[in-house]
């Protein structure tokens, strides 16, 4: 199993489920197994000296969880002035550590076959190809499937501006 995924990084074997969410106008999906929970309001405390893509830390039932602003991490230009109507924090479990991803809105869970996932189009998302597992088309919407582990290793300087 582990060998299989290692060999074919961009293709997911069998059927898999993705939790989707929106950042700006883009829809992203991550493996649902990597999602621990999704929180509505999570008080975030700023951390002086932290990279700018880190919102801060939050208290998740006694655990201190780093919350990451996905828009900043992925360098997605958002409307800075826009009023924040209820963002969500997707808590992912990675390397034995919970990390929160701050997203604008949460979408549906999509189930798809490996065959439905297309390799990332070279011209579409100029993201780090390590982060982008593939693209899934559902009802005309494009969902960019992200690899959580790679995503969390991404430094804001490493990511590039998203172009569609």
């Amino acid at each position: 199993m582990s060998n299989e995924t290692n060999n074919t990084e961009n293709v997911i074997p069998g059927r898999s489920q993705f939790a989707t969410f929106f950042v700006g106008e883009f829809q992203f999906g991550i493996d649902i197994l990597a999602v621990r929970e999704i929180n509505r309001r999570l008080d975030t405390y700023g951390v002086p000296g932290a990279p700018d893509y880190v919102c801060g830390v939050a208290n998740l039932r006694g655990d201190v969880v780093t919350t990451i602003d996905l828009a900043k991490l992925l360098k997605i230009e958002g409307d800075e002035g826009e009023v924040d109507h209820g963002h969500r924090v997707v808590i992912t479990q990675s390397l034995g550590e919970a990390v929160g991803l701050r997203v604008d809105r949460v979408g549906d869970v999509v189930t798809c076959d490996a065959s439905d996932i297309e390799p990332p189009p070279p011209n579409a998302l100029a993201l780090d190809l390590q982060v982008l597992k593939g693209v899934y088309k559902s009802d005309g919407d494009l969902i960019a499937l992200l690899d959580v582990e790679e995503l969390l290793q991404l430094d804001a300087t490493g990511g590039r501006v998203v172009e569609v």
Partner: protein
Amino acid sequence: MSLEQDELLSAFVMESSENLSDIESDLLALETADSDLDPELVNRVFRTVHSMKGTANFIGLKVINELAHESENVLNLIRSDELSPTPAVVEALLASCDQLKAMVDDIENSNSVDVSALVANLKSCISGEAAPGATSAEDDEGVDVDMPNGTLVFLDVRQGDITCRISAGMNVFIVEVDLVVDVDEKGSNPVEFLRGFYKIAELIESYVDTAGLGELHEPLPEGIGLKILAGTKLDSEGFSAALGVPQERVHLIGTPEDNPWTVASPTPAVSAPPANSGAVADAAPRAKSEAASGQKPSKAKSSAPVRRESTVRVNVEILDHLMNLAGELVLARNQLLQMKDQTSERDIGGVSARVDQVTSELQDAIMQTRMQEVGSVFNKFPRVVRDLVKKLGKQCELEVIGQHVELDKTIIEAIGDPLTHLVRNSVDHGLEMPDVRTAAGKDPCGKVCLKAFHQGGKINISISDDGAGISAAKLKQKAVSKGLMSEEKATELTDQEAINLIFHPGFSTAEQVSDVSGRGVGMDVVRTNILNLGGTVEVETELGSGSTVLIKLPLTLAIMPSLIVRVGRSSFAVPQTNINEIIRIMSDDVAERIKRVHDAEVLQLRGELMPIIRLSDALGVDSFYESKDGAEASTDRRHDLADRREGEEHEEHPPREDVARRECNTSNALSVVIVESAGHRYGVVVDSVDDPQEIVVKPLGRHLRGIECLAGATVLGDGSIALILDVTGIASKCQLRVPSRDTDTGGAVSTADDRESQSLLIFTNHPEEKFALPASFITRIERVTKDQIDSVGGQFILQYRGKSLPLITIEDHISARAPEPTDPVNVVVFSAAGRECGVIVPRLVDIRDVDAEVDAETLKEPGIIGSIVVENDAIRIIGLLELAHILKPDWFEEKKQHAVKRGHDIKILLAEDSSFFRSQMTKVLESEGFAITGCEDGLIAWNTLLRRETEFDLVVTDIEMPNMNGLELTRKIKTDPEFKHLPVIAVTSLARDEDIASGRAAGVDDYQVKMDRAKLIASIRKIIGDCVSVA
């Protein structure tokens, strides 16, 4: 492998590793015990090895079984007194013990390990004394044995065979027997001969020279050579007589006298001695341990093993879970306590008290399960030191104190490596070779002391040696040569900073990198490890008498007593281990206690200047200060803490708000937390200080690991998060320098240097012109706005503390360019003739100590007492008294009259070689109404005295002077019958205790530090007063 087998194996591994570490200390004790062997000691080791052998056999660990079996045999002989535990034997046992340990650690592969050499070694120990001839067929490390004349006789003889005989007190010989002459012709036969031989000697190897025999049909040749390598207790004469072989054919190869356990040196050499017989220093380390109670155990019991109490093994995972639960309970308790404050109902009070108590007890109990004695780490050091000393040819005594001090298991596990490194460092780099020590008048046997003790809620572990110490100069040199820093930067370092260079990555202090401790990874790794544990490392050293490394560790990592502080809306936790004290400065005192020096703010604390850091600046967060009702919070716009008058100066504010602001100013005392870490000591200014709390440390996620100011996070009672501050990190982020321990951090007294120096406050009037004021004259520095200064009749006046302070502008009295207008300005306040006076100083640059190489002539003008050159800038030094004289001559007239009025015009003879100091001191003393006669050195002063033109009341003298120094002058005065009544005050920049002592010995009445004006005058007044009253 079956599950059952697996369990058996892990049980075996766990048990064996514990047992083996006990064996090691017991074996070392055996070695030092010599004759008065403690039978229980041997028994214990024997039983351990025996049970290990049994289990290994049962599980099928053949190799471990084999080695344990052989060790057991040796131990059995020691137990039954048939074999004495000579160093060779112990060495062999230790080596086996090491190998056993290695195999247990890697149990899966233990069966494929080759232990034949060790087994053979052990066997040879046995054969050496108890079982003659029972030589093993297996190959030990082979050596070739030569005849005295160099011809090779025996090839590949087992080294162990020779050494064990020598160690058993035998001489080893090569005997050349002629079977024809010595045996056949004496009517004996070879069998008979050998039978007799065995009675007196142990045969190691024999060889018959068959080459010269020829064919059977030929007649017997002149002689048939039989060469025997044998060990015997007889000397060569006795041996030859007993064998009937001429003495010239009995060759001595090795004797016990050469060396207790080597074959290395005697003439008929055994070439290529293997490692286990390498040169041995005659000083095996005398491991000495001392119980915490201070009583010294008897010699035989030295390096006592950790006594195993009945223990329960708890899975660490479960233990960690318990710890977390306890942590959560602490949080719940905090929450409850907070609730109590809000609802203030009695029931909750009772409940919370109970929860509080239970939680604390639970926490303590659980903590206990994790506590282990540091002895478990310390116990390996006697062996480390023993091996190291042998390798380096040094002598060392290791003293272990306080091995019963307990620490958290995780800390115990983590300090092993850093401590090993430090102990090795002490022995390798710290201690000198015995001959060097003897030459330096020290005991050739060095001393390393390992000590653990409680202090201030922390565990301190110190590793001290009485070696050469660390040379700061050498470290600087090295840092420059390694390209770590520029030469200028290196010279600027204080000694303590230089010492701290050893923590710099890639720094090794030994002249040569030895294979012992200089492995490139050095003290920096040690420090990183200790810091990761929440501890600190400090090095103290004294050249020639040794160094001490002091490690301070928290008792536990899981729960940390901390102080919660607030800046703006954020809470931060400061570990209590870092906190020295908390100071609250009332708003009235702020201006007085907090000063600005250049860009930095300093706090005056009990006569010491301490750097302070505003936490909001260091972290880049907004600071708020709230008005009394807490309803509105406004960002603190005060750029300067010393400036607390903001409320008054902003007239554009509506009056109501102005009142509110003033109110908040008065209620807004300043909280400063004085922290200390890794040699840094500084104040942290925070908005407010909350209660101390026991916090549960939560690590920060990987995205936040690199932030140097933070050490983690914690959840507070109200569910909010407080970040834990890293005190060392903040200091390094703010680039605080580590002050040297022995220097005053910025007072007027210069460092106890041989050079005369004084500290000057440097400032600019016009940006291109620099001036300096002698810091010793300055009472304080105020920051005022222009509108606080009034001009009355051409004289500037500052309304100041209900008095009017006359102000001096530089450009009005000295040829200087007018300053560019700045607001606010600094006012340097000083006192002259008993009154206070201020100098307007537009911009402060620095306070620095400069050499007294003052040019008193070049730029001379009224008000300027000299000039110096600092970093290519000419700086004019302003004479504050002269300026005051120009401004207010009447003050000085008054003073003089005052002095005259007292009916005693005091005449002082001043001997001082530096014209700068002489003129300054003359002015200072004259302003006090004394009459001064200045002399350039002691001789001139003496001659002035002898001329008797003036009758002096007092002599003030410098110590260091040409022709006749101050001490000589004093001695002359004090031994002359005419002058011996004259009081002498010595002034000097050398204010060390020994200087003072030698001054007193010469007859000096008082000793004052140069430039401490107030004290000098007070001293003069006191002495004169005494004389008057005596008269």
